[in-house]
């Protein structure tokens, strides 16, 4: 019940936030120099004033900005994200086409980084001050400090070119028409490098957070109480420390999960991953306003979605919060 009210409340807020984002982005993007008609004309290899004017009329770019905005917002309210003249298709279809690839990539990266981060964080915290700890935290620092795209380049160089273990780019073997298990394996093979590249940084973040949080929680009074009960260290760690320590990690993960979608631009470019990050970058260069706005909208919605999910997860883990709102 409480959760339902929460969700409804958050959704109501989300709609307002999203509208605000749409409007801000609309002006932001239209403030950019360059005009989509000119870009499109540019690609035809020859164009003149008349042709560009035709294009502008076709895109509705000849209308005053507030009229364009009004139309756009009206459309968005009806789940119509407009038409991409650059790609000759409705923006929503375009995004839905690309979204699965992005979700596959980001969610894998997210899952792997969270899992590895927490496990390694646990391992490090369990051996504080020993060399294992130093090694793990050192490695985390290294990943934390490395530019993502550089890791991508270097790993392609190593794993695809030198060792030829993994495909260098793309998200499937094109035209192989694999089915069933083969398809899954094929996808997985393509996924390894981009997901790792994207995930390593976040893994480092979770690792450090988990470790710090574990160390902090293990100083808390209730841990001492648990010891006084005669519980084994194992149970104390698992039952008392871990759950409490994961609370901040959950918060952070929720924040990151949404951001990942937008943050995949670099990875998707380097690995030719057909997701919306790349779509965004391409649309930006072409001043494909509608597509760009659509991508922004979708990624913002994603952030909000994950925030809500985080809140719910948090509530499930932490009884204090849910009850606080209910009473």
């Amino acid at each position: 019940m409480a959760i339902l009210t929460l969700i409804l409340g958050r959704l109501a807020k989300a709609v307002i936030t999203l509208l605000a984002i749409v409007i801000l982005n609309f002006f932001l993007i239209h403030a950019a120099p360059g005009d989509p008609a000119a870009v499109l004309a540019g690609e035809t290899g020859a164009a003149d004033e008349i042709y560009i004017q035709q294009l502008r009329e076709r895109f509705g770019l000849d209308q005053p900005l507030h009229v364009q905005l009004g139309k756009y917002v009206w459309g968005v309210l009806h789940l119509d994200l407009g038409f991409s003249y650059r790609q000759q298709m409705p923006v929503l279809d375009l995004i839905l086409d690309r979204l699965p690839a992005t979700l596959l990539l980001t969610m894998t990266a997210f899952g792997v980084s969270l899992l590895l981060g927490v496990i390694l964080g646990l391992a490090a915290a369990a051996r504080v001050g020993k060399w294992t700890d130093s090694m793990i935290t050192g490695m985390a620092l290294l990943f934390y400090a490395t530019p993502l795209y550089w890791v991508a380049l270097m790993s392609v160089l190593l794993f695809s070119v030198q060792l030829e273990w993994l495909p260098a780019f793309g998200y499937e073997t094109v035209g192989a028409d694999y089915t069933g298990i083969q398809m899954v394996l094929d996808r997985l093979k393509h996924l390894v490098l981009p997901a790792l590249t994207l995930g390593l940084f976040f893994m480092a973040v979770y690792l450090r957070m988990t470790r710090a949080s574990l160390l902090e929680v293990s100083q808390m009074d209730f841990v001492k109480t648990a010891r006084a009960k005669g519980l084994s260290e194992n149970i104390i760690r698992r039952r008392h420390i871990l759950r409490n320590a994961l609370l901040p990690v959950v918060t952070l993960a929720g924040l990151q999960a949404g951001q990942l979608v937008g943050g995949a631009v670099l990875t998707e470019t380097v690995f030719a991953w057909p997701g919306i990050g790349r779509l965004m970058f391409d649309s930006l260069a072409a001043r494909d306003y509608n597509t760009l706005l659509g991508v922004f909208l979708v990624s913002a919605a994603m952030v909000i979605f994950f925030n809500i999910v985080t809140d719910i997860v948090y509530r499930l883990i932490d009884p204090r919060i849910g009850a606080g709102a209910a009473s």
Partner: protein
Amino acid sequence: MDTVLSIQNLTVSLPRGADRDHAVADISFDLKQGETLCVVGESGSGKSMTANALMGLLPDEVKVTGGKAIFEGDSLFDLPDTARQAIRGERIGMIFQEPMTALNPLMRVGAQIEEVFEAHNRFDPAERRKRALALIEEVGLPDPDKIIRAYPFQLSGGQRQRVMIATALALDPKILIADEPTTALDVTTQAQILNLIKRLQERHNMAVMFITHDFGVVAEIADQVVVMRYGEIVERGRAAKVLESPEHPYTRTLLNAVPSEDVPDATPLVQTPVLEVRNLHKIYVTGGGLMKPSRNVTAIDGVSFSLSKGEILGLVGESGSGKSTIGRSIVRLVTADSGQILLDGQDMNALDTQELRKARRRVQMVFQDPYASLNPRKKVLRAITEGPITQGVPPEQAKERALELLETVGLDRAAAERFPHEFSGGQRQRIGIARALAMDPEVIIADEAVSALDVSIQAQVLELLKDLRDRFSLSMLFITHDLRVAAQLCDRIAVLQKGRLVELGTVHEVFLTPQDDYTRSLLAAVPGASWGRVAV
């Protein structure tokens, strides 16, 4: 009686960089079956470290470096970790000071109790649950069926402490170690818990090692007393003997410092009210948002009183009764909903921001926490002079006055150039008082101004306050939950219950012939109330 635990020459050493080399040095004492041993001493004297060493719960960097603890024929410190783990919870139980944080916030209360059985492989889950229920009942928690499924945050401090006790007693341990288990609780709750422990001790015939810094508590429950200072035992013996005729000078100072003299004679009052509070109301509204319902807490419910020139009015009551809220309303740190606060006839509630800033100098506050009430990044001089300078006093003059005041409160002039962290708690509280005095106030509100201090230091500060009142004929609203302190310092006492003023009278009236039931129960709950030195 049998000795269950014998501590011989225990030494616990601290890591480099700590206050001193040893938390505990070469101490010995015995714990006998069915007896309560109280360990008293000021903060940092090594009480907790002793207990933790016995439990095997010392922090990593703190080590037992000498001595033995013989428990049931075994030397505890020589046992392997697993064996010590087996003893914890089953043979020796422990309760801690802070009930708010001692329970895992994410686990149901019942599960936390049942865990003890699990840890020692006792019973099947159904039986564990039954026993947990029985324990909850035994420690006097209401509605056990509900409590067992509750989360810690749903319980009050006293209730949580009962859960802790239930946990500690689950396996009928031979020894119960309690490290200041009632310090964080208010008097009535404290009395209940002390009672409970006493009762259970008798029923289970345990040995109890009770750590406290409160001699009232000692008087209430102790059979044996150990007095500690700087990690050493300075005195040890039967409770009655130590309390009645202490041998060691330190014990004597401690006991003298306990604010327990006879209720002082009422000083004749000059009947010129400086401060008048009329029909004050304050309701806190919390929570509340777009969809959430708000929660109302009535903190002050129609309180009226007046404060005469040179008078010290004590404001007592349980935790949450609204004492601080009244104090803070007077200085407008909290804005009351209705009612008047007249300072020499001027209504503080009616002032606008500018006027208020001017008027504020007339009422100053001395805060509870000497650590939190001074800005750690500002020198003492700045802390004292900032107010006067803001009010328009020339800096030179303000500085001169600040130096004088430092001397007045018993500090060196050189103290002005130091940072707060370079002072002890008692010294900081003096700085806080000097800061309040620097504004030349007519009224001082002291909100639990001595509660955070050790008894001996407490006594000094109280002495200082009295002295200042006499010298500057200050009026003072002294807020405290400690009735002994109130008895010693105040001229009149106001008793507060749930935001309402239930009794107001001279110290004699209130302490000797209390009118209100609540006042009576409050007085009865003071630990060691029957102890001869207290005049109630």
